[in-house]
């Protein structure tokens, strides 16, 4: 379990690294990368739990987009620029994981 957790965190670190390269950085300190990984993990867990709570508050078990939007609002995430962000520039895509033989 521990090892699996490490694997997912490593993937987050790789994703953050490619975002930073995209932004224009060439190198990054190790403690900064650790901090950003922690923040990204926290962001994902938080939006998950907040959205789940909104979903269950409305008596549903299947989350819909409205729950996620309310989650964004509660977390103070500005989602108006998302569409522009996706269209704006090409983003790096990590290579798919190869199944271990």
């Amino acid at each position, binding site marked *: 379990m521990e090892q699996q957790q490490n694997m997912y965190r490593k993937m987050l670190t790789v*994703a953050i690294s490619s*975002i930073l390269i995209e932004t224009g950085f060439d*190198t990054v300190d190790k403690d900064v990368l650790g901090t950003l990984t922690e923040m*990204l993990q926290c962001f994902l867990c938080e939006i*998950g739990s907040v*959205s789940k709570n909104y979903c269950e508050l*409305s008596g549903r078990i299947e989350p819909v*987009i*409205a729950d996620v*939007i309310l989650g964004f609002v509660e977390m103070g995430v500005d989602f108006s620029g998302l569409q522009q962000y996706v269209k704006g520039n090409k983003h790096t895509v990590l290579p798919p994981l190869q199944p271990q033989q």
Partner: protein
Amino acid sequence: DDTDSQAQTLGQPLSDFLLQLEDYTPTVPDAVTAHFLHSSGFEPKDPRLLRLISIAAQKFISDIANDALQHCKMRSSNSSSSHSSSRSKGSKDRRYCLTMEDLTPALAEFGITIKKPHYYV
């Protein structure tokens, strides 16, 4: 109910946007996002919801990085103006390194305070 309909009108452009996510691959892989969402009990059937969250998370980091880059550029241009000889070499081939020094003010603008213990290494 009231909150639901309010969210729907608020999210109208976002639901249109959701339709475009059908064949978009965010930098944060779907499986990774799904794992952390599952760990907090959120299990969407629709993979587009997953992608929307991935993109929001990606933008969150990207915005912080952009801010930190501005700080980094500002700081390095300030320090290089004091050594005028190195400035003439041009800022074109300058390499940018993201350090705590730049990240801390960038995060402060987002209302996030980070306090790392400073160890003696």
